[in-house]
């Protein structure tokens, strides 16, 4: 695993999913207050709004990462790509 390959792999999975997660978080939390969400789903779990935003952001990132990784894998990203 050399470094340039590693960079490509991270660059085309971690990064796009990060961008998508940032956009998704903004849109999602602009219309939905994490505190309302918490009240309606897990009222016993006492977390702050900041925690809600953070968890939401990382959830979106995780989902995006999964999707990006599959795309990378299926499009043969590790062998044939050439910029």
């Amino acid at each position, binding site marked *: *695993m*050399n*470094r*340039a*390959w590693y*960079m*490509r792999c991270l*660059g*085309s999975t971690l*990064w*796009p999913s990060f*961008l998508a997660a940032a956009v998704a978080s*903004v*849109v999602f939390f*602009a*219309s939905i*207050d994490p505190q309302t969400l918490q009240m309606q789903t897990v009222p016993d779990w006492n977390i*702050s*709004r*900041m*925690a809600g*935003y*953070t968890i939401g952001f990382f959830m979106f990132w995780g989902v995006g990462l999964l999707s990006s990784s599959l795309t990378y894998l299926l499009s043969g990203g590790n*062998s044939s790509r050439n*910029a």
Partner: protein
Amino acid sequence: MRNQEKEVTADAGMYVAREKIHPREVKGPFQTLRNIAVIVLLGIYYGLAWVQWEGRQAVLFDLPARQFHIFGLTFWPQDFLYLALLLIIAALSLFFFTALAGRLWCGYACPQTVWTEAFIWMERLTEGNRQQRLKLDKSPCNSTKLLRRGSKHVLWVLFALYTGFTFVGYFTPIRELSVNVATFSLGGWETFWLLFYGFATWGNAGFLREQVCIYMCPYARFQSAMFDPNSLIISYDEKRGEPRGGRGRNVDHKAKGLGDCIDCNLCVQACPTGIDIRDGLQYECIACAACIDACNGVMDKMDYPRGLIRYTTENAMEGKPSRILRPRILIYGLLLLALTVGVLYSLTLRTPLAMEVMADRNVLYRDVDFETIENVYTVRILNKDSQAHEYVLTVDGLPGARVITRPERIHVRAGSTDTVIARVQVPRGAATGPGHPIELQLTSQSDPAIQSTNAARFHGPDE
């Protein structure tokens, strides 16, 4: 030997191992412009967080309270449209400037470029110029190397941490935050985001650098779609430069059949992405113009005219005229102008007041006395203005209807919310059966233009 090694790595189905790029320091007008851009942009980033406006932080994205303060304006989640429009305007300006002047954004304004430049300054301060850094890379581990490397990393880490601190300072009031940092009483999430952003800065600007542009940046991949033969690019004048070759200062190179390029390689050494501009336009080129400055310096020394590498257009290179006004520019420009004017206009017309009306779900209606029926609503008032207001609630839609709030004049502080209970009373005969539409209207007492109307339903008994 080196080439052989490279081939072996390539044969193994991998990529050529990256060598660390140490861009050479250049002097010239474009470098000065870049330095100014770095200082101004970083100055805004680090300074703006400390600016106060009417008793609170001027720019504060108060996520816990779900409101954004930008100088006199307060934005609520209901104002999401403005954020969306702002993003569209940002994207359109990127298209516009790319079509007009190429990758201006990449070379001068992109945070990746700006922070990388700042990190290179620190590197230069501790490890010296390009030659010294290359030598240091090769030198065995000794006390000088440890000291130089160590002090560089200390500077980098401190700078990155301060960057992370400032970042969090846009979401939590930075003055409180600095007190918390000083007293080691920082909250968990704040600590996390401070370290996360600090780490990202340190990694991106210290280590990844040009690789972010080459492997990670989506803009670098699609910017070519906005280019046309009239867009500004940085290009090497091949006709003038070739055949390249070394020569003495006072030699008539034209007699020897040489072009103006003396093959000194300074343009390659100055390039932060490590490309050779003489190979033609490449997507790795971030248009920072460092090679122009480097080459012009050499041209001056050789007494050749400047501009062997220069800002030009594809058309100009082929001897055709370049046009600034063309359909692409006009369309991007007009869209940009229309959107910007539209947003500014609607911002000035924006009513700095919003309310939500929720009917009491427990009781549909109450009998106040023999003549009167009452419905109860919870009214949430958002004062988006930068000053406090006193509001009065009125009702419309049913004959003889009146509304009672306690107090009658509802005082709401600037940029905050308040909730009042509103009791709407209607004569018994006027509202039979459920679901009569009514309108609740909230009006500021100091400025009657500031008002907001909400529809609601009034339920009466079925008699």
